[in-house]
């Protein structure tokens, strides 16, 4: 409330008016002006300016009784306070509306992003899009996407924005991390100020600065823990409730998109592997056919030309033809086993006393003759180890294991071990080859599965280990594979000795 009198207004006339008119919402400011008795307000120049401009002016003629002055001022003050209240209320409504609009915008944005993620069929592009979408949604510069290959493995950073170089591909501990806790508790966690947040492991941000605040949502499906999305702020930040809700909703959308993409990739891999398998099977079947046909034609040519078949040519062709027929028979048997495996039908084992040591030495010799780069060493703890097993199928198992050892190692020693304990015969094949990536280890016995480091590089059907595992299972034995990428692979087969044993 401005209280003044006409003399003062006259002296600095324009000044007061200007100051007043400069105020925002100047017309709301109550002005009480005391003027001399009989003075017309219109004749006080500045007062006239104010009145003409529509200012909120109350004119009192002197002498003004104290009570009048007080009640006028109080009324002016009350009016002013009411104005403030109305303004505050109005602002509160506007704020709420803006908040609602923002929430609605975010929800719409979330929906758009969810749809967009759903269209994505390539994991690496999907990862990048997830990170970009989160940065966009939360208006943050730093985001990390972490995935779990297995429930108890560490998180692997698969995509990030604003993190220090080298953080992508690095690992975040499964348990000593905020992401791990979020996954375990199945809820989004937010830390407003990491400095007071305690003992969580966090990545370094671009430029090496520490994290100020972090929010992390677990990526979960009903049965699987897939990973977590972390959003970082370089300085402390008060995460609002709707930030947490939005991150949770987005993580749910990511879980769906990720599951879909993985299903699709899995199916594509199976299709590719089936194509590879067909190509390899047709190659393997047509080679012996070529040999049989070629041998017969050679005999026909010779006979047509000379009228007789020289002993040497006859012997050679008989040898190659019968060898090819044996190869084709073995291949067709294997294909039938594979077909049974695909249909889920059990194998019918043809059990007979079988010497595992002899079998190992025989196959080692065959494979040795085919490779100059490898040395195959058979280490048998007993001279003979006889059990009642299906010899041809065990041959196929060892054949597969030795083929793999040769195929997936550049050279060097391959060790075949044969030993036994009270209950089982133990057969092992160890190479120092390229090994199997940790992530693929859980799937080695699935048909058409091949390691990420050999897919598309080394010929292979991906059927061998699956068939081997089935044969060993039918013998009520076990097959275990231990491998380290870059170091080599050890496969251990245990066969029960229960029926008719004789080892010397």
């Amino acid at each position, binding site marked *: 409330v401005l209280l003044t009198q006409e003399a003062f207004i006259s002296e600095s006339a324009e000044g007061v008016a200007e100051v007043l008119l400069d105020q925002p919402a100047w017309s709301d400011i109550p002005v009480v002006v005391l003027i001399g008795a009989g003075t017309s307000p219109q004749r006080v120049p500045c007062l006239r300016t104010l009145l003409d401009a529509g200012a909120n002016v109350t004119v009192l003629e002197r002498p003004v009784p104290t009570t009048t002055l007080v009640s006028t001022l109080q009324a002016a003050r009350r009016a002013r306070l009411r104005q403030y209240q109305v303004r505050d209320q109005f602002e509160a409504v506007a704020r709420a509306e803006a908040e609602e609009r923002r929430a609605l915008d975010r929800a719409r944005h979330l929906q758009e992003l969810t749809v967009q993620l759903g269209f994505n069929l390539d994991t690496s592009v999907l990862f990048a899009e997830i990170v970009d979408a989160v940065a966009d949604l939360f208006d943050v510069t730093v985001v990390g996407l972490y995935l779990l290959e297995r429930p108890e493995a560490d998180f692997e950073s698969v995509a990030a924005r604003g993190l220090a170089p080298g953080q992508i591909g690095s690992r975040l501990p499964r348990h000593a991390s905020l992401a791990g806790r979020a996954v375990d508790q199945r809820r989004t966690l937010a830390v407003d100020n990491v400095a007071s947040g305690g003992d969580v492991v966090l990545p370094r941000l671009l430029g090496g600065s520490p994290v100020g605040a972090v929010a992390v949502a677990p990526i979960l499906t009903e049965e699987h823990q897939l990973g977590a999305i972390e959003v970082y702020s370089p300085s402390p930040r008060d995460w609002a409730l709707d930030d947490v809700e939005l991150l949770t909703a987005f993580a749910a959308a990511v879980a769906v998109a990720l599951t879909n993409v993985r299903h699709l990739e899995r199916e594509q891999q199976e299709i590719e592997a089936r194509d590879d398998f067909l*190509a390899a099977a047709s*190659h393997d*079947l047509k*080679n012996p056919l*070529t040999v049989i046909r070629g*041998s017969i034609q*050679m005999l026909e*040519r010779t006979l047509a030309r000379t009228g007789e078949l020289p002993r040497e040519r006859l012997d050679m062709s008989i040898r190659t033809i019968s060898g090819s027929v044996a190869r084709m028979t073995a291949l067709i048997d294997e294909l039938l086993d594979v077909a049974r495996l695909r249909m889920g039908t059990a194998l019918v084992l043809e059990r007979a006393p079988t010497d595992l040591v002899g079998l190992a030495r025989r196959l080692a010799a065959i494979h040795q003759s085919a490779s100059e780069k490898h040395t195959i060493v058979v280490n048998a703890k007993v001279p003979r180890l006889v059990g009642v097993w299906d010899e041809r199928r065990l041959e196929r198992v060892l054949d597969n294991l030795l083929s793999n050892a040769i*195929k997936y190692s550049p050279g060097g020693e391959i060790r075949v071990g044969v030993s036994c304990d009270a209950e089982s015969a133990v057969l092992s094949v160890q190479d120092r080859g390229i090994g199997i990536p940790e992530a693929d280890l859980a799937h080695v016995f699935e048909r058409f599965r091949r390691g990420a480091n050999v897919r598309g590089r080394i010929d292979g059907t991906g059927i061998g280990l699956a068939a081997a595992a089935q044969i060993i299972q039918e013998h009520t034995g076990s097959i275990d594979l231990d491998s380290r990428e870059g170091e080599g692979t050890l496969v251990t087969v245990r066969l029960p000795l229960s029926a008719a044993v004789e080892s010397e």
Partner: protein
Amino acid sequence: MSNGSEDIEQSNHLPVLVVDDDADVRQVVRWALEDAGFDVLTAADGPTAFSQAELRRPGVVVLDHGLPSTDGTHVAAGLRQICGDHLPILIVTADGRAAEKARRAGAYGFIHKPFDDAVLVAAVRRGFATGEI
């Protein structure tokens, strides 16, 4: 093998290099080509094929596309580096994508396993004709 051969027109020419990982297949291809009067060299893999080609330039290469560890296309490229871009290569395959494989390897032709000996010999003769142009 030149005994009893009716057709020795190629014997003074360059040899045929047969590259196949299967020893028995190499053997029957050798029989068919030698009986037709060709001089035959064999190799089980890419590196052996390269060293053979360095020792003696082949007139035609009969290349199995499904070689283990080395893709047939790479073997073809390696042989061309040694013998020149015009080296005639005949692709032998067991699966259905022969034409595509032959094109990728820059081959003048392809035959399917199991092949007829007359088809093989005719294809190799065609290769020598290609090489002379």
